[in-house]
């Protein structure tokens, strides 16, 4: 994985090392000569190979698709979730964003709801708990149904799609000074609540997901840091929609409309 132009930049990495959830953690310094064409995670891969070769414990970090759509990766790079490049997940961040001689501080996403598993890997299962509380649907996994079986207005489809772009990485929680998960939850609530298929359980789902969210995360103060950190640039408008839908869910007569 040598640089295509043979050039390298030298960076100093300060990486958070923590042996386990309850172990104390600290920063470890590594110097790396790396091609600017390498991705940030490839740089960590190379560093891990060196650590392996030296008989040391490699740095634990998460990644999967490495094309910015699975939401598995995610670290704080110089105090910013997913690093300095806007609308980019850590896996799509490249070393060309850094300059020769830079010091790069790499930390895990921080929140009480995201305990560290090891080094840079955190447990984001509270996000799964929020999704689970939203309920489930049964879909016949056989042949795909007709594309236009359920007509969806164009505006609703667009808006729902914007919400559905959320990859659930947790950068919003990490960037939030309050460790609130409003952007994640509102994207999920909005995605389902905007589509005709999602209407029947719109209110009970919103209520359950918000209340599960509040068991793990902080309270939104509308700073707007989440949207800035979001690799998918989910809009704050969804938070407003969720706040409104939640209150509607609590006060409307759901019994009359056949919703529990």
């Amino acid at each position, binding site marked *: 994985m040598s640089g295509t132009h043979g050039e390298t930049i030298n960076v100093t990495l300060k990486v958070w090392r923590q042996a386990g959830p309850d172990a104390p953690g600290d920063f470890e310094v590594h110097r790396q000569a790396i091609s600017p064409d390498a991705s940030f995670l490839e740089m960590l891969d190379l560093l891990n190979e060196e650590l392996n070769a030296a008989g040391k414990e490699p740095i634990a970090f998460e990644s999967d698709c490495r094309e910015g759509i*699975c*939401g598995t990766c995610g670290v704080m790079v110089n*105090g910013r979730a997913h690093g300095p490049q806007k609308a980019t997940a850590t896996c799509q961040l490249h070393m060309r964003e850094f300059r020769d001689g830079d010091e790069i501080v790499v930390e895990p996403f921080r929140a009480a709801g995201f305990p560290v598993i090891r080094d840079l890997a955190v447990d*984001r299962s509270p*996000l799964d708990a929020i999704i689970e509380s939203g309920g489930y649907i049964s879909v016949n996994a056989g042949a795909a149904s007709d594309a236009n079986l359920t007509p969806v207005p164009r505006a609703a489809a667009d808006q729902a799609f914007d919400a559905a772009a959320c990859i659930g990485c947790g950068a919003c929680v990490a960037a939030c000074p309050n460790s609130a998960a409003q952007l994640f939850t509102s994207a999920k609530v909005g995605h389902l609540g905007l589509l005709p298929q999602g209407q029947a359980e719109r209110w009970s789902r919103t209520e359950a997901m918000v209340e599960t969210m*509040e*068991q793990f995360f902080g*309270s939104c103060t509308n700073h*707007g840091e989440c949207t800035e950190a979001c690799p998918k640039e989910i809009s704050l408008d969804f938070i*407003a929609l969720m706040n409104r839908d939640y209150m509607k869910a609590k006060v409307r007569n759901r019994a009359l409309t056949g919703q529990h």
Partner: protein
Amino acid sequence: MAQTTGERYRVAPVHRRGREWPFPLNLYQTAVGRKWVMALTGIGLIGFVLAHMVGNLHVYEGPARMHEYAESLRTIGGGLVPKATVLWLLRLGLLSMFVLHLHSAISLSRMSRASSENAGLVSGAKKYAGGREHLAATYASRTMRWTGPIIALFILYHLADLTWGWWLGDDFVAGDPYHNVYTSLSTLPVAILYIVANVALAWHIFHGAWSMFQSLGVNNPHYNHLRRSLATLLAGLILVGNLSFPILTQAGLVDEDNRTCPVGEVEGNDCLAEQAEGHGD
């Protein structure tokens, strides 16, 4: 979200809620509901601040007019109810809004703080060693938890100063607000205190008046771009209006040189009342 494992909920809940209260009190048990309360009481409090400011502009019309305005507050409701009944109801409403605004703010801050435990907390704020860059948060939004307490403490001072007359002592004349305002604000340290507190107030409203739209889910592309402008306008109006009192008093525009009614004729303040009447409409 590729973290599916055999175990469910490996992370224990950070916050646990007790038994659910009956509707509508249960709304206040949730953070989103509390933000609604914070926003609605915020609207009420901004309304009070605006009315208070507009009313106080009468100080520029002299002692008689100021007295007339103060008296008019007591007679809201006309002859329907005993004098000052509506005023006391308004005061009670104001106090409840203030208490709710404060309680929701404090409890939600604590919730957020607990949600950031073990998150590199530095003096109560989440901090990353890599240097936290605030990309979107304004200075106003980050200092709500400072401007809030400053305003709360100032309100206590302000009540003691011009409602109860604690510090003015014998100089405090009930029923002659013009005299009291002049006496208090003509002291430089007091004027500075009023200036500082009102800058904090405008600062607080600059974020609050924008944030309340989001909390209440009032969001519409037709007017979203106006939400920030409205917050700026409100903060600006309150800043200019409220700062004018200490500044213009210090500048000598509010003084007692042309006073024709003697200070201290308190009971009913006949002289001031007569002057106000003679002034006509």
